[in-house]
């Protein structure tokens, strides 16, 4: 097989970027002790996944799947990218938003109780 960077640069670059974002996000999730930073890291991971999703739907040299005057129905098959990943990304973003909102609310409440944003201060339950 080999890397297809040369032939199809964009999709592969986006894909690699996505994976890099995941790794960076995971590093943050696992090493940062500040809860806010952890949440940011999680959103980085999510974004990374979304980026990958987009890159999978992308076909080199094509355009958005909106069939109007720019892209006619007749040659649509060879002109547009896959609409499904786009739809999935949309959903995934919304879900990410919801989760983040909820996490932040948790953090607000947790901060009220402990006056701390260090994750190590919240290990009340263990073993």
């Amino acid at each position: 097989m080999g890397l297809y960077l040369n032939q199809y640069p964009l999709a592969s670059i986006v894909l690699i970027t996505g994976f890099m974002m995941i790794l960076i996000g995971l590093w943050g999730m696992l090493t940062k002790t500040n809860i806010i930073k952890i949440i940011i890291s999680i959103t980085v991971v999510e974004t990374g996944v979304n980026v990958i999703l987009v890159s999978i739907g992308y076909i080199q040299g094509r355009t958005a799947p909106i069939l109007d005057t720019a892209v006619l129905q007749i040659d649509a098959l060879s002109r547009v990218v896959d609409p499904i990943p786009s739809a999935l990304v949309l959903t995934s973003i919304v879900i990410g938003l919801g989760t983040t909102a909820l996490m932040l609310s948790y953090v607000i409440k947790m901060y009220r109780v402990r006056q701390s944003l260090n994750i190590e201060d919240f290990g009340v339950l263990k073993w």
Partner: protein
Amino acid sequence: MVAYFQNPLNIYITAMAAAFLLGLVHKLGKMASLTLFYGALTMMAAVTLGSALSLSQPLIIQTAGFIAPLSINLQFGYYEAFFTICVNIAALLGGLYLYDYLKDSVLARALFLMLVVGINGMIMTRDLFNLFIFIEITSIATYGLIGLDRNIKALSAGFKYILAGGMISAFFLLGTALTYYKTGTLNIDQIIAMKDVLQDPIGLTAITLLLTALLIELKPFPANGWGLDVYQGSNAGIAAMISVGVSTGALFALYKLLPLFPAQHMGIISGIGLATFFFSNLMGLKQTDAKRMLGYSSIGQMGLVLLALSFFHTAPLTMFLGIVGGLFLNHFLAKAALFWIAGIVKKDHIKEWGILSQSKMLTVVFIIAVFALIGLPPFPGFWAKWQFIMVLGSGNHTFIIAAILIGSLFEAVYLLRWFNYVLAGSEEKLACEKSKRVPVLIFGLITAFISALLIKSSLGPQSSIYFFPIAFAVILMFVGNFIPTKLRALFAISGISYLSYYVQMNVSGLNLIFAQMFLWGGMILSIATFYKTKAKPATYGLLFLMLASLGGLVLSRTTLEFFFCWEIMTLASYLLVISGKNAKKAALTYITFSLGSAAFLMAGFALSNSLTLMGLAALPSSQATIVFTLLALGFLIKMGAFGVHIWVPGAYAEAEDDISAFIAAILSKAGVFGLFVIAIYMQSTISNSTLAYSLGWLGILTATFGALMAAFQEDIKKLLAYSSMGQMGYVIAAVALMSHLGWVTALYLSINHILYKSLLFLSVAGVIYRVNTREMYKMGGLIKKMPISFISAMMAIIAMSGVPPLTGFGGKWLMYTALIEKGWHLQAALAFFASGIAFLYMYRLVHSIFLGQAKPEHKDVKEAPLWLIIPQVIFMGLMMVGSTLPRLWVEKLSVAVGEFMPSTLTWSGQTATTSLGYWNGFMVMNIVGVIFVIVLIFLLLTFQKVQKVKQFNIVFAGERPFTPETTHVAYNMYAPVQKALGGWVKPRATAFWDGVTEWSHTLSHMFAGIYTGNGQTYLFFILLFFLMLNFLIGAN
């Protein structure tokens, strides 16, 4: 309208519409929105039931007017129906349970509805991305609900859950993306159809990601710390929903995707399930927080279900539902009930759970749930586990069987320890709202109902034999509160008599002899129970159940029937033991060993691959050796053989006094029967094998050490307990002889044991009843107050010691003859020693209680109650007849054994002859009688007048002792023997088992140490879990 109830889609529509409307309706008033909420839950459950009932073939539900890969479709087949019914009923009752919690927050109600939607969606959807959305709905709703309790525990637990959830959803989404990339579709059925496409690095990574996500949802070891925290930290009602609802969704989602998983790697899933089951239960051992303990148990049970799933995901429907469904249902019912009860009790530490005992209803449900989790019959887990283990056995998965059985034992230990704390009781008042009580009760009833159905369906055409006694026993237990003790006793006895009639009609030969031992013995002993003016409500039901299970044991033809009865017997006897005053600790030891015994039996039956007991005969010899060893270990534990005897003293001593008689006289014969069964069927393999030889030595050692330990007891019932252990030792050796004479001996000794142990325990029960102590040195001189009890005890020890002319001699004669005939000479010598030592404790028993100096405080003691005396008189009568006319019964034994091997015992008149010697019991009795009478008459003639003197009028250097009662020599009576032989009976076995306990607790603590409470650590474990899975799958 009917159509509404038959379309599963309406579950979603109803829930969503209601949830969206709640906000608006709430403006109309709280009542309105509560009605909407509960109405919606009810309708959802109704729709599920309606859809399930109208199901004639799996239903595919398309949406948006397009066929599957174009649009998202749902599936509602039999599997889905089963799981959604569970979930939606749990949701309805869980919603009811959470009434207090939900009534103040309309948002919480909406979240609850959506949670249920999410779970239903996870079960039904056939679209990968849609599954992701439903997982998210479920998770987010759960996060929200956990947050309703805004204390630090709930908050930190919820936050850890969100972190883990974030990682899970990232994994799942990435997996979905890569799967879509490889297959070009999101429809699960299509993906499965194209799974060959996924056999490349990207595809495998995709599968691994998806599976990691779903597995993590099931909280596998060790990536499950966050799950434990959630169980512990969140509200009990929410924890229940997570345990039985969310886990169900995840389980089913996994089930759907399992076909994607390369079949050759299914072992990985099995391994994860097994490790989770084993380690969760191991770690549960050290747990003291009730909800966290339930968390460990939940995780463990789901691990077991996962293990079963990995084996049976392609099995036909009935098998799938029988095993996976059964295990799941068991967990589902029990865990929901227990979490709910935990919410009612509101105590974190299990030590404070005594408060629960104030509500009988809750306690009963608690017991049912705990027993169900342990896997005792007739609860669903028992049947499923049995089938599962049998299948594993036929595949020779020895290691898995061992791990499952050991893990189950751990679980049993911590759950029953908890039960002990419940029984301890408490002064505090238990507040319990009806809304919380009702769901618990309903779940209890459902469990009972399903169990009843399962007895019917699992035991086949024979089931009513097993069903009706259990039903009768249960009824007897429940009416216990309303009808007087004596009437209950009467019911129990008439039940036993009918049962004994029925059983005897249906068996013959050896089984008949055992049936008579169990049931006649039980019947006569039951008379004694009348002496108590007030018995606990359940006592007679349990007593009946125990005897009925013994009857069932004799009747059983299949291994399942046998094991079923065996477990019922364990259950009933455990509950009988634990109803003693201070019996909790002893009962725990007893049940632990009993369950250990059951585990060995299960393993043995599993490895035999035989459905019938008869089938054991057909095993090839190498297999038979293993099977025999396992089964024999099981029976030996129950008989209290040397090394595994440490439960014996506690259980015998701490049970109520009349119950001890049953345990010693009747129950201990169950092990004998079991040993006989396997010895008979595996005769050809076992005869003259090393195995039999070792068993023989074990028996003799048991006899020796039992006797020796009995000699050093101060506690009268412990003395009798060790004595029973010793006597069972002879029986073990006799069965191990595998000869005609040996087996006749075993039967003879067993019957004789029933006679004299009944006498002793009943006599002692009367004494304890009168003097209120079990310490022998606190008694003395009771012969004048309780002459009949004394005679009974005296006859018993004569019969036990083997001194002619009573029945004991026949046993000794047969035993030594049989041992020497077999060539087991050293064993015979050791047996001699053992029976010599037996004299020590027998003398001690009679002397310390009945002879010597009486205590002043006992001067007004009366003879034992009549009800105790009557059975003793009956047993004494039987003993006299049996002693005088041994042929009357010994010949029957000989004939019964003769069915299996040629008889070596011949009779002429009353003389029994063997190759070695002869014995005429009738003549001995007469000669002894005549000499005794002549000597007595001589003495009577010599003394015209005998002056009766007072107690303290003894030759004591011409003085009267200052405190005469202290001259009663009883305490530490055999100090010299202890000096000489005490080293032999250092509590090594106890130390060993203590060590086992200690070590498992240490291990438990060590493993639990990985759950640091830090959310990041948990995340790291999840990552490692993925890497491990990835490594294992990629390794090929």
